[in-house]
């Protein structure tokens, strides 16, 4: 994420968060105060509704009591219900209907002591049906109870009470009440914004394996809406809720709830106004914040971007870094520090170049010294041999000279070529066929040996021919053989030069000795410049071998173990690819 993006996000959060907290806080405070104001009012309404229900209950009880009293003096009722007079049976069957209409009840049922319906007002033709549980349960409730009354068109909810009367020593139960429908609930909605709903337990709620979820039930013309629980859900919905429990009789006595909810229109308006102002302020703040953030981020990030670009293009050979150095702020300080660092780097680089030049001259001198010594050693050896012959066997001098003349000429030629190469400073490597057997034999012959040291050759036939520069190949073999001889201690040993054809189109030269070998650490640094284990060694022999081999597109590897000798394997491109 870029610095600019972070700056924008930081500004946005810094502007929006406090404003959001302010908006939420204001809304909550307003809601809490308005809800608190109206809560008592709604609870008062619930109390009034409860009193209304009690009044209705008392009214029903009073009407049932009146009917019970009238029954005691109703001779036609006695004739039909007590004496079983068939002629008055129609009167008995119609009695409840007439009484229901007269008393303004919506439900009226007369049962005998066995629970048999002898007359029903709301369902005239349900006579003779047994329903003994209803009056018994109502007697236990001792107050008005909600029941599902059965009617021909379907059940309806009724708020009922029970009474009883004894006629001719026979008990009759009266169950009567009023229909609980939307018109009944309407009487509780005395104010605008007040909603009354009746929530009754569902059929499923009676299943003991299922919890009571307060499901809705449709009864007759009354569709009872879903329960709104009394919690702060109501407040969120801009309404306050209070509940009034009412006994409800189904298979057992449970509780229905009269839910009174009151809408607070001003709360909704207030919230809307607050929301509108909040949104407007939010938009303004975000816009201003974004503009400021963009301006600031540009002002901050542009010099940084320029500085970054300049830093990425610093050239130690180029001009001085001068970007933003004139600023007097942190960026100016950073630019000046960067410039200072660049200056120091330039000085260091110059010193480094000078040191490199000096080191190169020293290396060159050591290299020349080394190569010339290599060329002079065979000449010195031949001269010592000749002097020895002259002193001991003068008559053989001419013969021996003739034998060693080629060595002298070869060494002189080698030195001559070396001198010409160094004169060119950058010697050009030739590419021509090289007889590696001849070079191996020449080196073996020219190498000075003392005591029990033997330099042997094991040459492939026909002679392998490598593609390269004969002088370079000679230098490689010469260096390796001399190293091998020097590695042998006083007990002596063998140095063997082996030539062969590698299967991969290369010519192989192996120089192996039976010397003391190398440790792992020595092996790891064997080809490093200036690494040597000899007191007077230059540490350049093997590094020169590696460089020359690489110049010929060849390779060199070494195998060695302490006390078991060392074997260098040179592989050079073959003149005739296999």
């Amino acid at each position, binding site marked *: 994420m870029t610095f600019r993006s972070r700056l924008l996000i930081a500004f946005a959060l810094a502007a929006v968060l406090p404003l959001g907290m302010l908006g939420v806080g204001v809304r909550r405070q307003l809601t809490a105060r308005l809800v608190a104001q109206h809560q008592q009012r709604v609870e008062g309404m619930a109390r009034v509704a409860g009193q209304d229900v009690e009044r209705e209950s008392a009214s029903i009880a009073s009407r049932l009591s009146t009917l019970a009293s009238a029954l005691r003096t109703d001779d036609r009722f006695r004739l039909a219900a007590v004496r079983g007079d068939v002629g008055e049976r129609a009167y008995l069957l119609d009695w409840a209907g007439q009484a229901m209409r007269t008393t303004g009840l919506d439900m009226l049922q007369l049962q005998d002591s066995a629970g048999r319906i002898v007359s029903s007002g709301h369902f005239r*033709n349900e006579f003779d049906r047994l329903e003994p549980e209803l009056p018994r349960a109502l007697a236990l409730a001792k107050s008005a109870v909600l029941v599902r009354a059965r009617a021909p*068109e379907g059940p309806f909810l009724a708020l009922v009470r029970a009474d009883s009367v004894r006629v001719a020593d026979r008990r009759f139960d009266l169950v009567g009440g009023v229909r609980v429908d939307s018109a009944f609930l309407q009487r509780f909605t005395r104010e605008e914004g007040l909603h009354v709903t009746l929530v009754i337990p569902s059929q499923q709620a009676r299943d003991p394996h299922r919890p009571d979820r307060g499901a809705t039930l449709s009864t007759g013309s009354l569709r009872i809406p879903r329960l709104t629980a009394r919690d702060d859900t109501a407040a969120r919905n801009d309404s306050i809720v209070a509940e009034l429990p009412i006994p409800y009789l189904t298979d057992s006595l449970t509780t229905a709830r009269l839910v009174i909810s009151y809408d607070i229109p001003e709360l909704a308006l207030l919230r809307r106004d607050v929301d509108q102002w909040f949104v407007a302020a939010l938009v303004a703040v975000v816009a201003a914040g974004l503009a400021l953030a963009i301006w600031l981020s540009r002002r901050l990030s542009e010099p940084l971007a320029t500085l970054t670009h300049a830093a990425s293009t610093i050239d130690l050979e180029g001009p001085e870094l001068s970007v933003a150095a004139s600023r007097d702020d942190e960026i100016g300080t950073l630019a000046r520090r960067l410039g200072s660092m660049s200056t120091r780097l330039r000085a260091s680089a110059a010193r480094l170049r000078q040191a490199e030049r000096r080191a190169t001259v020293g290396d060159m001198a050591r290299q020349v010294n080394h190569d010339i010594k290599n060329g002079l050693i065979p000449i010195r050896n031949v001269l010592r041999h000749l002097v020895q012959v002259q002193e001991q066997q003068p008559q053989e001098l001419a013969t021996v000279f003739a034998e060693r003349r080629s060595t002298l000429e070869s060494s002189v030629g080698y030195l001559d070529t070396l001198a010409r190469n160094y004169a060119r400073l950058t010697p050009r490597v030739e590419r021509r066929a090289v007889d590696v057997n001849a070079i191996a034999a020449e080196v073996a012959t020219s190498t000075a040996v003392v005591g029990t040291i033997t330099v042997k050759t094991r040459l492939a036939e026909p002679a392998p021919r490598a593609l390269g520069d004969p002088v370079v190949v000679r230098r490689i073999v010469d260096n390796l053989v001399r190293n091998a001889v020097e590695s042998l201690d006083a007990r002596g040993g063998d140095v063997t030069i082996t030539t062969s054809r590698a299967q991969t189109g290369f010519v192989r030269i192996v120089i192996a000795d039976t010397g003391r070998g190398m440790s792992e650490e020595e092996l790891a640094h064997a080809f490093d410049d200036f690494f040597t284990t000899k007191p007077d060694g230059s540490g350049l022999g093997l590094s020169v071998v590696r460089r020359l081999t690489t110049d010929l597109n060849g390779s060199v590897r070494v195998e060695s173990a302490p006390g078991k000798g060392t074997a260098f394997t040179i592989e050079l491109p073959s003149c005739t690819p296999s």
Partner: protein
Amino acid sequence: MTPHDVLRSLVVVAIPTLLIAACGGSRAPAPLPASDACLVTAASAAVDSASIVVTSPVNVQNAPRATTWGERFVFELANDSSARLDCRGRPAADAAGPYRIREAGRSTLLLEPIASARGPRLTIHSASEANARDLVDAGVDLLLTDSPKLAAYAGTRSDVTSLPLGWDRTWVVVTPRGSLAIDTSQGFRAGLARDAVRADARAAEGAYWWTDTTGCATPTARTAPAPVATHGVVYPRDDAVARALAERLVAIIGDRATAAGLAPNAFASALTSGAEQAYVFPLPRATRDRCRSIAELFRNTPWLGVQSAIVPLIDTRLRAVVRRDRLSLRFTWDSSVAIVAAHP
């Protein structure tokens, strides 16, 4: 087509079976009674106008297909008198009418004979039982009612004659799938007649024309009733007897059953579909063309006969309360009465 249409068609078409049913005899032609054997009451002089009360809904919009017995009585007055038969099945040449409707109010109709016809102008009130009492007290010439209580009250006047008409309708319950076990015992039916309805009723009895399809071309391919749509026992909405019977059946069936009154067209559609649990409606006890009535019944209930059954419940009859020496009335073939234009 509703059962009332069947009723209507049966009323309109003259057939000798009228005589059999109306006079309570067998379907074989009976010896003709005396010339005035069908006369109910006779007035010494013709009157210009008469008032009639029927305690049955009358909606002239339903003409000519009567849906209630009140409409059947009124619409019959509009028919050609020469097509009417008396209780012996003979043409009633002295019948008043045919009539035309001069005014139709909410509950009152003014009828007058067409130009060439004879008979008094008639004011017909369609009234509830309570209003009918007021009209009786005010003095009406003829009260036709199915309420024994009202007839009894009206009969307390000293200037009237109260008499029952013949058993003219049988109330049946039809269950398309035969899924309801309806008690067909005499005791059950008698209980229905005694306790469930307020009409002058008895347990259904006798031979029913719909059970005898001899010589009639009955459809062989019947359709199965539609799947059950409700748990309802339905009945014609304006029919108090059907309603009482349906409610009693619901009370006996149990908790899930309900009774529902349907408007004439809705009842006809429901009957055709067979999607309800049961249908309660009246069928005329007499028919002038048995095979035609049976065909009509099968047309209205295409599922009838598959698994269904027509269970007769009760018979009902009307009562007539007539002011003496005001109107001459004659029994008709279908157990109703007809106004006589002039006493012979």
